[in-house]
């Protein structure tokens, strides 16, 4: 019996391989093995969404996922959003709409928003808030967060039409 496993995956386009204890959570793998500290640890029980990352493009809670579950998959974290010296459109929208206060929940919200745009979802208002139910902001700054994501989703939908 071995409590250690090899985990090979891609994070933000780069391949990594590590031998870790099988009990290693994906969020701790990202933070402690790969030193990617942008993914935050919040409630640790799958409620708050601060640890949201994309697994093959789908939003998942990395505090509920064991690192070996992510073996062979492709992960996107907040570090993978911005280009060289240039914010990702969702980050720019958050900046423009003053959508962060303490910033702790922000990486999770950004990735949840990117997943919506990638699925071609252009929601607003109550319907958008429902889609964001897996992400909590303890500063309660939802008004501007929702506004930023509405702007970003409109922009992303416009880009698809124009493209």
């Amino acid at each position: 019996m071995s409590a250690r496993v090899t985990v090979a995956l891609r994070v933000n386009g780069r391949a990594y391989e590590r031998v870790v204890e099988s009990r290693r959570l994906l969020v701790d793998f990202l933070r402690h093995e790969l030193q990617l500290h942008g993914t935050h640890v919040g409630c640790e029980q799958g409620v708050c969404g601060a640890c949201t990352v994309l697994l093959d493009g789908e939003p998942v809670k990395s505090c509920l996922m064991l690192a070996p579950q992510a073996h062979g998959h492709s992960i996107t974290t907040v570090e993978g959003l911005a280009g060289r010296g240039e914010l990702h459109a969702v980050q720019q929208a958050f900046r423009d709409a003053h959508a962060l206060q303490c910033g702790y929940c922000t990486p999770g919200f950004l990735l949840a928003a990117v997943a919506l745009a990638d699925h071609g979802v252009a929601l607003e208002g109550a319907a958008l808030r429902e889609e964001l139910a897996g992400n909590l902001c303890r500063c309660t700054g939802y008004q501007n967060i929702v506004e930023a994501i509405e702007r970003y989703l409109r922009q992303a939908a416009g880009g698809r039409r124009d493209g």
Partner: protein
Amino acid sequence: MILRPFEYVESQTVDDAVAALRGGGDDARVIAGGTALVPLMKHAVLRPARLVSIARVPGLADIAPATSGGLRIGGVATHWAVSHATLVRERSPLLAYACARVASPTVRSMGTLGGNLCYGESASDPAPALLALRATVRLHGPGGARTVPITEFFTGFYETALQEAEVLTSLDVPAMPAGARWRYLKWTPRAQEDKALVGLAAMLVLDGHRCRVARLAVGGVGASPVVLARAEQALEGQELDEATIARAADAAAGEVEPMDDLQGSAEYRRDMLRVWVRRVVAGLAEGRAS
């Protein structure tokens, strides 16, 4: 929250998984999406020494048409996949909708339909839908494959018919009859992503105002998700007038054994079930479907 150490076995086939589960005895658990299991391990409610992953078994996440007109859905298909599959939306919109009501998008894209059922939680969203649809559960264990009607799958508080070293491989979901009207009503005390206090699945087939087929099931009320058999009997063959619908609602309230918890009292659950059966059936009778 640091988990206790455990061995992680990645299965390539269902037989591999069954063998690994047998080898691990009582200390082995199946993991698919992990959304139920990992939090229980964090809180040390479960302390498995071996996790047997079935997430990568080829074909186990497939959603395929059945010759009967229904569907076969693999046990590790995620709630997201089930709710978005065109095939499910066309043939079993009640199930697609119920899967889209599970927790939040992040949990739906991780958690699997089979995992949801094997967890045996009363407040499951897909369970009442599958009960109303009279689905069949396909299991594979040391003795080979067997099927269990979903109406016999939930046996008690977080208990199911799953036996030692058995894996839920797929579900057979009969097609909804042409013209069926349906609704899944999830009543939660606070936010949408909460667990259902009353999760009511309903499917009716009408001839004019007469009810030909009534299928009602509920989760979140008692120890397990259950078919509301007496409410169904009160509706079938009857004109769906106010008195008949009220009788069905009373029958539903009378046939459940509701539980008390922090979300609500047993009497509140019973009362809300009566209210929602009445409103949902009346709405469907008037053609306000889904």
